[in-house]
């Protein structure tokens, strides 16, 4: 059975319960579900909001491509990726990934892979706006994210 990933790029928040039920309700083949939620963080109390810019069309297309790669690599029963855009204030949700499978290892690895690839390949950019009102600042890409994404190619080469 072909699994079609659910990919959404939207300004609205998402509900993890609703998205979980969508992957499990009325089914008996899901043994494990791993969900990742990314939130807007601000320990210092200096951030007023993150502004998430995206490339409409390509953002959805790239998330579908990454999802298809995960589906080829792991035996998943379902996969959901929701990424918000627009202004997001500290404490709010930014991104949700849910991977469902018969077994927990596949669900964990697929969700982890999806987040790593999404971070380095999905066309979204964060700009920080500050409480002080001083002009926004584009967030720099992290070297760590590129290294995290590279873990999956190494694994591929080893297997």
């Amino acid at each position, binding site marked *: 059975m072909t699994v079609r990933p659910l990919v959404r790029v939207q300004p609205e928040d998402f509900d993890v319960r609703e998205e979980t039920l969508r992957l499990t309700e009325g089914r008996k083949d899901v043994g494990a579900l791993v969900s990742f939620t990314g939130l807007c963080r601000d320990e210092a109390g200096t951030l007023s909001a993150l502004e*998430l810019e995206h490339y409409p069309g390509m953002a959805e297309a790239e998330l579908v491509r990454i999802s298809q790669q995960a589906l080829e690599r792991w035996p998943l029963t379902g996969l959901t990726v929701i990424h918000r855009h627009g202004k997001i204030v500290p404490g709010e949700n930014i991104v949700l990934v849910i991977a469902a499978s018969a077994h927990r290892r596949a669900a964990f690895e697929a969700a982890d892979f999806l987040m790593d690839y999404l971070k380095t*390949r999905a066309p979204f950019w964060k700009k920080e706006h500050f409480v002080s009102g001083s002009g926004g600042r584009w967030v720099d890409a992290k070297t760590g994210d590129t290294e995290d994404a590279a873990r999956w190619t190494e694994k591929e080469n080893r297997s």
Partner: protein
Amino acid sequence: MNIRYFAWVRERVGVEEETIDVPGNVKTVADLIAHLKSLDENHAAAFEEDEAIRVALDQMHVEQDAALGDAREAAFFPPMTGG
């Protein structure tokens, strides 16, 4: 050809989107970047750190040595920071 810019590349160029005539000697993404840089100071500033710029042709990631082929849209942007 339709050209789109995102994030700080967009801010430096000063437009989100523009349509340009591609000269016949512009064959690759790198050629296109060189051509855009020659247009004015804003474009030159946007592409100053040109090795940092990522490129998509018709909404697919490509390297700078990729041929433009019959792509209808090129997009230029910084490394992505979503998630």
